[in-house]
């Protein structure tokens, strides 16, 4: 995809590359500096200096309140996401394989996937009579189910029939086929759904904790706002952003290893 040197108005390829790398570092740094300068200038308690926020960030999250709040939040994300993935795949594979099951399930899937999660927050509390871990995990798991489920169904439906014919011609029975052919073949699509599900998990976690909780990052966010502690509030926002970013990065790294074959295969097929 590299353009010809001449297409860049005479700038050579080498210096273009160097310039890009400089820009990749310079732009974020410049934005951070601008943020700091603006907050110093504004001198408003609601917008504390970036430097103050960072200090509070370090104090709170590394590592004094890590155990009390970050860990529960991560646990909820982990459990909710985990349940959603297992359920999504376990339901999605049979639904993908059977047209009738799919027809019967579709109205429900299409309805629940379109309901805005916060609309069910109060109901989840009323139904489960609690604001504890179970309620939060159930809430997270319920909504994170759908991206995985839908993508699993699509992935299974999109499998080339020749793979299935091959498995059948070698006498593989249904369960064996699902395990060794259907699941790996649908995996790239399933993983795409998992990625969406993960970012949804972070959002639903924050929402459920902010709405009503006794621990967790969302809870800290709420409390610091209510007690007008702005720097800690910003530090909590920052942490949520960092958590979302890190989880995403970790996921992409894991995906790269698990789906290395898929990239190679696609690259070879496009030649």
């Amino acid at each position, binding site marked *: 995809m590299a*353009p010809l040197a001449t297409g860049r108005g005479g700038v050579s390829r080498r210096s*273009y590359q160097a310039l*890009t790398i400089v*820009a*990749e570092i*310079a*732009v*974020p740094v410049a*934005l951070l500096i601008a943020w700091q300068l603006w907050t110093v200038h504004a001198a408003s308690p*609601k917008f504390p200096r970036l430097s103050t926020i960072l200090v509070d960030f370090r104090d709170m999250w590394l590592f004094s309140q890590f155990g009390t709040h970050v860990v529960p939040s991560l646990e909820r994300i982990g459990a909710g996401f985990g349940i959603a993935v297992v359920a999504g795949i376990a339901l999605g594979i049979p639904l993908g394989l059977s047209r009738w099951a799919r*027809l*019967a399930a*579709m*109205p*429900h899937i*299409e*309805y629940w*996937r*379109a*309901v*805005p*999660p*916060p*609309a*069910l*927050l*109060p*109901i989840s*509390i*009323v*139904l489960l*009579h609690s604001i504890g871990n179970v309620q939060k995990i159930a809430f997270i798991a319920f909504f994170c189910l759908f*991206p995985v489920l*839908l*993508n699993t169904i*699509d992935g299974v439906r999109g499998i080339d*029939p020749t793979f299935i014919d091959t498995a059948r011609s070698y006498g593989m029975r249904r369960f064996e086929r699902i395990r060794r052919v259907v699941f790996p073949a649908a995996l790239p699509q399933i993983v*795409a*759904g998992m990625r*969406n599900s993960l*970012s949804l998990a*972070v*959002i639903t976690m*924050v*929402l459920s904790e*902010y*709405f009503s909780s006794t621990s967790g990052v*969302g809870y800290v*966010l*709420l409390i*610091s*706002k209510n007690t007008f502690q*702005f720097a800690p*509030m910003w530090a909590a*926002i920052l942490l*949520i*952003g960092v958590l*979302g*970013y890190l989880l*995403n990065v970790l996921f992409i790294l894991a995906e790269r290893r698990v789906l290395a074959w898929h990239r190679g295969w696609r690259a070879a097929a496009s030649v």
Partner: protein
Amino acid sequence: MATRGDVAATLAAPERARWRRDRLSLRKLTEALVFTVSIAAALALWELISRTGVISQKDLPAMSTSFRELWSLVQTGDFWKAFGQTVRGWALGLGVATALAVPLGILLGSSDFAARAFRVPIEFLRPIPSAALIPLLFLTLGTTIKSEIFLAAFGAFWPLLVQTMYGVRDVDPLAMDTGRSFGVGRFERLYRIKLPSAVPYIATGLRISSTVSLILAFTAELFMGIPGLGQKVNYAQAFGLEKQLYAYALATGFLGVAIHLVSAAVERRALRWHPSQRVGAA
């Protein structure tokens, strides 16, 4: 199993058309039947669970009760006022996001350099759950519709930006080279070749963003007491009005489904004439 394609291919044209038509109408009938029965069964189950007390009626009002409540609400002006407020917040949030994300996306997508320079900030800001900004909004824009629009727009902005960028970058290089070799100017190349091929991506982005915008508009109403369906839900829960709670939740659900259906239909139209189709369920 032989595909319908195999069979269809071996028929002569008029036979083929007739065969397709007959199969299609029978199939559509059975599909509609299964669809309806499935929904009816679920609703019946809800009614059963609640009436028999498996889950107490205080926690889960019966299906008939909830729908009756919804029906009576729908006849009040109050309901439609709240409904309209949510729709307004959703629409304005989506509109602002589109107005910002599409031009910016085209700009960043067209310039390799710009895309790479801004990659890190975008990758960092993208995953921030907009919900985390609610406290900030309390302090700055306050509990007004401005907060709702800001939140909805902030959330809807990112998927649309990213999708627009992908769309502009995914142009078939052959089409661009052809344009260049015919001396088509840069700007014209942009709106004659790049934009049309980016439209399906933008349509996908719009579908995702309209869902996100609704979620956030509702969230703002729920958490900040801004007038709308979210506020009604919060109110109902706070005062222990279960029937209303479920009725409003149902109404919100239906609104969500309606928005999803419309945006998915638009996306499908846009995808239909694109040579290579790309779909990802969100």
